[in-house]
């Protein structure tokens, strides 16, 4: 029996799915989003580098390029509406040799065709004055002032929360098992949480977009996971660079970067390696040495001892461009696949494009009278001056109860994250940064477990790192 009837079902709660959900929530539609993990943003999006690209390093006429340039503009508006921590920091693509300047010029020209604004080739003197961290051997760089940084997971949380407020129904731990086209029109969607019906299906399933597409008989693309290993540095090095620093791009990626992050910790990486296993998130000794070697050539002061964390992410690559299209032979089914870099930047533009595709294919888009475009934002103590902290503590004593010492996160922030939907230790970490600092949760994990248990009623033994099977402890013997 069907558990629900929807106009649109979105498969996948990453940045693409959440952006689409939020965009469609402006209209009078019944919308559901299915995510297989325990929380949204737990797939590809959680390992994103958090760069809002200007639109450079994309082939001319590519969908990627166009959506990236538009997405860069739209992200500013959306982050203002939702209170996401977007910062425009600018980026530099660096050149070491004379002949590499020609390559910079070509990148500049291609980007300008796509409409990337304010690009400038800067010389050694400019670099020395504005980015003194760079090696003396860097002779020129392509400066893109519109590059920004954002927290990729907080963006997804904020988008999905806002979409939820505007009526979208979110189903987590709800892997889609099968999709059937019904002869009378629409689809029947079998999930781990039961059967649902929908007139339209948008497939934004990231690494599994090919598997989902196959369910309705469209199998002309394959998603190849392209692994990227990234290494986070201590927040003490937050002023390591002033810009996001790129080498010249390679054939498969933008190269190994020095990244500024919204959390303050610089990040170095990613590697790029095509693999077979869609669940292989392991890091390697080789990845570390590759990354260190590459970035130290550009920013010599980077020290391996500053690394406090590392992780691997998988880019859902399929060919060289995004695949965003309505499938003619399966009317009502829209694929949003191959959303690798610059997917985070392009996401709001992708959402507009999908909304347009749905409209062209018969979905009536009537605006709601009341669309809540703003979101009540939360506080991060690490991000505000102490004078503001003082008045916050006066209002709520919980802000003065510091739980995570390395990243300065209070009990109040952790409780807020839980009330906003965090169900796991990783969910709390991504929202607040608690456990993400130099001690890696050594001091605060047990306290956070207790808060999570008190707030949600889950016994301590059922608290997980990131959902099913990742329980932190085996047994509670406190009552033995």
């Amino acid at each position, binding site marked *: 029996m069907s558990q629900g009837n929807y106009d649109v079902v979105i498969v996948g709660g990453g940045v693409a799915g959440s952006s689409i959900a939020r965009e469609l929530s402006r209209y009078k539609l019944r919308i559901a989003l299915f995510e297989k993990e325990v929380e949204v943003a737990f797939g590809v999006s959680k390992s994103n580098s958090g760069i809002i690209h200007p639109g450079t390093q994309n082939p001319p006429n590519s969908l990627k390029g166009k959506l990236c340039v538009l997405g860069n503009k739209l992200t500013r508006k959306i982050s203002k509406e939702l209170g996401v921590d977007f910062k425009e920091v600018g980026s530099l693509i660096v050149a070491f040799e004379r002949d590499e300047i020609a390559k910079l010029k070509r990148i500049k020209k291609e980007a300008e065709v796509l409409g990337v604004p304010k690009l400038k080739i800067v010389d050694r003197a400019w670099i020395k004055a504005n980015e003194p961290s760079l090696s003396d051997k860097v002779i020129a760089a392509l400066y893109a002032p519109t590059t920004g940084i954002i927290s990729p997971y907080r963006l997804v949380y904020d988008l999905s929360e806002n979409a939820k407020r505007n009526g979208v129904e979110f189903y987590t731990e709800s892997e889609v098992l099968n999709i059937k086209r019904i002869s009378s029109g629409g689809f029947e969607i079998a999930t781990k949480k039961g059967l649902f019906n929908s007139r339209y299906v948008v497939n934004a399933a990231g690494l599994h977009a090919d598997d989902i597409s196959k369910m309705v008989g469209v199998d002309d693309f394959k998603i190849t996971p392209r692994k990227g290993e990234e290494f986070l540095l201590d927040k003490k090095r937050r002023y390591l660079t002033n810009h996001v620093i790129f080498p010249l791009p390679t054939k498969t990626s933008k190269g190994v970067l020095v990244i500024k992050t919204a959390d303050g910790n610089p990040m170095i990486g990613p590697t790029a390696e095509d693999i077979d296993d869609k669940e292989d998130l392991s890091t390697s000794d080789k990845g570390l040495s590759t990354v260190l070697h590459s970035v130290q050539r550009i920013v010599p002061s980077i020290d391996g001892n500053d690394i406090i964390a590392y992780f691997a992410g998988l880019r859902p690559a399929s060919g060289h461009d995004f695949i965003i299209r309505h499938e003619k032979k399966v009317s009502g089914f829209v694929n949003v696949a191959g959303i690798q870099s610059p997917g985070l930047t392009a996401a709001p533009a992708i959402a507009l494009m999908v909304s347009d595709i749905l409209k062209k294919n018969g979905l009536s888009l009537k605006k709601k009278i009341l669309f809540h475009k703003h979101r009540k934002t939360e506080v991060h103590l690490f991000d505000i001056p102490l004078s503001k902290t003082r008045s916050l503590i006066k209002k709520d004593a919980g802000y003065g109860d510091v739980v995570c010492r390395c990243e300065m996160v209070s009990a109040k922030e952790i409780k807020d994250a839980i009330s906003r939907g965090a169900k796991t230790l990783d969910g709390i970490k991504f929202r607040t940064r608690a456990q993400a600092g130099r*001690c890696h949760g*050594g*001091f605060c994990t047990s306290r956070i477990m207790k808060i999570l248990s008190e707030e949600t009623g889950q016994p301590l033994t059922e608290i997980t790192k990131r959902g099913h099977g990742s329980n932190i402890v085996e047994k509670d013997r406190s009552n033995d």
Partner: protein
Amino acid sequence: MIERDLVIVGGGPAGMTAAVSAHKNGAKDILILERDQRLGGILNQCIHTGFGLNYFKEILTGPEYADRFIKKVADIPEIEVSLMSFVVDLTKDKTLTYLKPGVMEVVKAKTLIMATGCREKTREMVHIAGTRPAGVFPAGLAQKLINIEGLLPGKEAVIVGSGDIGLIMARRFTLEGAKVKCVIEIQKQSRGLIRNIVQCLDDFDIPIYYCHKISKIYGKDRVEKVGVIKVDENFIELPGTEFEIECDTVLISVGLIPENELIEMAGVAMDRKTNAPISHEVNKTSIPGLFVCGNAFKVYDLADSVSRDSEKAGVLAAEYLKGLK
């Protein structure tokens, strides 16, 4: 802003000994800021014995050892203790800002003793490759979960590193009914105390692999196994020596580092390698009147040695105060 003669940050064995010693030597206006809900620091979770042999000539558990000092501190009215007080800012002129539930306070200290202890090196600091599932714990966190919270972290553990916390935890896990498969130590010998090797490993027939390292952690949601490989004297992996051990828990005990982010913020000259202040005399730093003692000054093997040297910090602070008058 409040003013105090002596502020001590940290209420573990170092901070408490320093407070008592400073008082004995003439300091009469002392404030201890402790971020936890009680004094004692990490001793509270060290329920094993072995403390006090040198300092008290008695065998005590960690909490008993701490309790001796907690009582001494409580008996001195001139020592004020502020619990759940987390210092977020420290400046060169010894002005501290701390948060506590409901208040943010700024206090200017005439002299300052930092007794902030140390933290464990993490898996990330020694760059163990592989996945990042649940079940990888710093050994001290596992100790806290078992001894303070009454929670058993896993059923089958492999311990990385033979520091004292790792060895103590091998015994603790075994006593709690879990299986410790082995200890993996990259060096030729243990960095722990001999008594701990005997009493925590040998007595329980727990094997230790010297000159071995974990090459990889496996497992998607929870740890499933670890890859182990032999290394030569330069810690280079020896191909062909790999083997795997199934386990659901990995305890990391690869050393401790002084926790000194606050003095670094204040501009104290730091040794980047050890994360300790650059110093030519015990407890002294590059800022006059700003002293560091206990494991924040250097990592000690015994709490008794921490107390012995922290007494000196109390003397230094008291003398510094006298010099101001």
